[in-house]
């Protein structure tokens, strides 16, 4: 299976490539702010006539540095409920193909984000680790808070 690795505040995260519908450059979209909504909902964008909510994963994962750079992208995800939701990430790192066997269960401790968002850990070639996100559970917006 193919996976996409992206960075959030120097940390690597991975999601299956098949979940991704599209990748947009942050500086090229206009985000309409929503008010009185959760802080991690950045706003709404128009993707060819579709109204799509944008989730700032960094806020959701309690990362304080939410600066925008020219590498900042929005990854549009197609969730299992068939909704299109954009997530803001610092930059796309790489695309890799790997076996399911290389995924190891995440330890209960030492991970900064809610364990229900994590499907496991993947060891990268350069000895780094990456967190395999359960993006569907991350984007269950009704439940998240």
């Amino acid at each position, binding site marked *: 299976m193919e996976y996409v690795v992206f960075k959030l505040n120097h940390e690597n995260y991975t999601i299956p490539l098949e979940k991704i519908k599209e990748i947009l450059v942050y500086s090229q979209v206009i*985000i309409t702010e*929503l*008010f009185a909504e959760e802080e991690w909902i950045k706003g*709404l964008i*128009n993707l060819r006539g579709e*109204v*799509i909510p944008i989730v700032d994963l960094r806020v959701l994962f309690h990362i304080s540095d939410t600066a925008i750079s020219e590498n900042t992208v929005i990854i549009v995800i197609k969730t299992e409920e068939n909704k*299109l939701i954009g997530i803001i990430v610092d930059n796309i790192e790489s695309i890799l193909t790997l076996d399911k066997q290389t995924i190891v269960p995440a330890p209960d401790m030492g991970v900064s984000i809610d364990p229900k968002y994590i499907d496991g850990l993947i060891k990268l070639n350069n000895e780094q680790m990456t967190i395999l996100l359960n993006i569907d559970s991350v984007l269950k917006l*009704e439940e998240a808070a």
Partner: protein
Amino acid sequence: MSQEIRDFFMEEAEELFDNLHSILLKNEEAGEISPEEVDSIFRDMHTLKGGAGSVELLKFSGYTHHLETFMDMVRNGEIELDSKVIDFIIESVSTMHDILEEEYADELDEAEYTKKLQQIIQDIEQIKKGDAPSSVSHETVEKKEKKVREKTQIFGDNAAEMIDLFEELEDEIEAVASGEIDPSDAISVIFRTIHTIKGASQFLNLKYFPTYLHEVESILDTARNGDIPYNMTFNDFMSKVAEHAQRLIDQELNSSVDHESFHEELESLKEEIGELLFVLEEDKPKEETPAFELFNETTQSTEKLQQEVTPQPFELFDETQTEQNIESSQQSETPMAFELFDNDNTPPHAEQEVSKADVATVQKTQQEAKQEITQPSQNKSDKKKKTLSLNKAAASTSIRVNLDKIDQLMNRVGDLVITKSMLFQFTDSISDENLYKAIHERLIDLDRDIRELQESVMSVRMVPMESVYARLPKMVRDLAKKLDKKIKFEHIGDNVEIDKMMVEGLMDPLTHIIRNSLDHGIEKPEERYKKGKPEIGKLIISAEQESGNIIISIRDDGAGINVDKVIQKALDNGAITHEELSNMTAQDKLMLIFHPGLSTAESLTDVSGRGVGMDVVMNNINALGGHIRVYSKKDKGTHIQIILPLTLAILDGLNVLIGDKKFILPLNAIVESLQPQKHMIKHVGENRKEILMLRREFIPIVRLYDFFNIEPSYGNLEEGMLIVIKTANHKVALFVDDFLNQEQIVVKSLEKNYKKIKGIGAATIRGDGSIGLILDVTSIVDMYKGGR
């Protein structure tokens, strides 16, 4: 066989079934069905059979054939209708439906089908034995059937046919008058033409005209049987009648005929017939006296005279006589005699659609109608005009279009609207004054055209509520039977128009609500008796249009919602906490019934009670941009209100400014806007709530910036603007910093990819490609009332 054509047939079949059900259920209680309705049932079945045959749904077609034959016998009076027979028809139609669905899905069990087929043949035989001597053999019916089938060409266009028929009639009468044809030879031709016109008129959904013609047909029939002579006097009379009839049909198409004026028309016709008969009777004895004994003459002719001067009692027999005559002439291979069955060949949806065309004609020709009313005596000079309106009816026939295609059209219009606003925005950047003006002017033309285009497309999508109601009576009836309850179901507002797109989304919620109402709301008869309520429960569904909304109400007089039980269940399930409960209004508590996983049914039934359903209701209605309100009183009943926007697609909005953020307020909600003066603002209550006093009306003020947590430009009410809005029941004044331009916006659902946002009803795409937010007036008002 292409799937598409099959699907097409299925769609049509559903409509036909809806029609069948509604006729049958309407008459179930009464235990009788009027001849016109029997005709209509027969036609529907005939169309179903024919259509099914052509898309190779042969099993269904085969089954339907038997019922059709049966209905034909009912139609011919060979089988008497009683409640047992009606029940049999209802059951059989249900079975028909099942077979159709099974065969369509390719799940038809051969053995099962054969059993059903044998059953219906047996049933029909039994009914036949139990009733009336079957004078017409089965063979004749079969033969007739075959001939009908052979006649494959279908006229869809009854209005055009009508014009032809009237011309034919005039020619025939003229031929007699000029001596070309002997009157006695002409009578059967004229009779048949009148009969055909009568038949054809039923497809134009006319009410009065056929009754009028029936009268004429009766007297002609008497002449045809030789009881009275058809001579020049009669021919003159017919020429007058033909003229009257044409005027009447046009008047009716223009809907300028009411019950009273028609009655006058009918009375005068009867009078004329009476006079005619009198004159003819005068003539007749002179010719025939020698052949009669004096004694015979007095008894017979006075008897005859009495019968004929009062044609009413004949009506019943005329119908059957006519049928038999047609049959006999058919056997003698007279081609004209098929005309009656040609009509049967026309699919009933053509009937409906022609009637729609009529509506259009009515609107178009309203002016003409007025003219005709003012000069009813000038028949001759109006003749051209009359034919014209029939011609119009003939021309505006309709076609069936797949809903997806209309959607695509609507989407394209939506795109146009967006592009247009982009263009408008672009023109602002043009610095050349002349160029700007030139482009701007043309853009305004374009704007108008797009608006008109959009309205036309919208109107295509509007359908009467009837189409929503059509399936409900059967459902209620079936459920009531299953649940052992007695229910009287009423629907109000059949003609209220609703976006076809919403009809689809509305069916599920309505079904769920009605199921719940029947299952949990309305009690069993004995229980109702104990409570001192009538044993028959009431379920009323109504629809009305109110200030840009469609409000659909479902009311029952059942047990009401047991709020305490709902709350207990919600607490037990962890759906709400005690703390949340303490903050809930009565309305909030009732709304818990829509919470996923809550059901107060004491026993699970196969009707409802698994706790799924009511949350679907909420979701679906929200997806349609609507809201639900619930009112309930113990043992008095429950009232569920569904408030829907008139259309989903495009609305007019007003841009308002809150701080530096733009929002869109739907124009249809706005009552007025004003810059308030100090003396208009009052403070009431402990919280010093702000109230706008406007011409003796006290309207609560909502500061929108507070609502959305936006830094406002003005905190002082007198500096900003107040916009008074109205929702279903309340008025509220919204405080905004300013309002900007008005624009047409394409509504996009938020729930499709996201969820409901409080205070925001939907989104739109602005000229610059960004998302605009449309304020949800109803939820703002509700939340304000909830204490914010």
